[in-house]
């Protein structure tokens, strides 16, 4: 599992760094938060799944969406993926192009 490996490898780094995490918001996600970005303190390691849990707790309207994904560095991320300092994070509500 590449995710497990990444988690182990970077865990120490994240425990010692006080970082903030800026999340880009689009569409209905921007309306729910009321801003186009959201900044969270990220003083410990975060997985994509933990980020989603936290966002759903802070903004219960996220639970009403058909889907909610996270993009890390412009790629869709699975829930076990670790978020690293400097990653580009965006919240992806259901897409509707075309």
């Amino acid at each position, binding site marked *: 599992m590449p995710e497990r490996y990444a988690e182990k490898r970077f865990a120490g780094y994240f425990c010692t760094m006080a970082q903030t995490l800026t999340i880009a918001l689009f569409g*209905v996600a921007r309306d729910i938060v009321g801003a186009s970005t959201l900044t969270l303190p990220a003083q410990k390691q975060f997985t994509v799944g933990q980020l989603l849990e936290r966002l759903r707790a802070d903004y219960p309207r996220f639970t009403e969406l058909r889907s909610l994904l996270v993009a890390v560095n412009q790629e869709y991320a699975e829930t076990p993926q670790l978020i690293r300092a400097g990653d580009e994070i965006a919240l992806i509500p259901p897409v509707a192009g075309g």
Partner: protein
Amino acid sequence: MILLTDTPIDLAAALAHVQTGSAGAVDVFIGTVRNQTAQKRVVRLEYEAYAPMALKKMESLAAEARRRWPVERLALIHRVGVLEIGEAAVVIAVSTPHRAEAFEACRWLIDTLKDVVPIWKKEVFEDGDVWVAAHA
């Protein structure tokens, strides 16, 4: 030709881009703004994109289409911003040696674009608005 644009899509330029001497078929899909949805009158649509990721995804769709079909040239253009009724929101043009592959590639490109490219659309009605497909 892979573009996001906040001005009207240049259909002639897209067509000119895909036409080559070796292509016997050009298939074009144009997604346009409809004036109603579920019997409700739509005033306009507003599109927004996570532009760098949208372009990256559109590039990877183009690469996948080239792997699957003998694509000579393709154009994948999506509009963002405020669109009025009748305007083109998306244009996909594909040229291939024969027509079957052009139809298939074009259809796959629009279907997959709608599934994976981070673009959002708000329908604006006379009495409110809604982000399309956001809620179950």
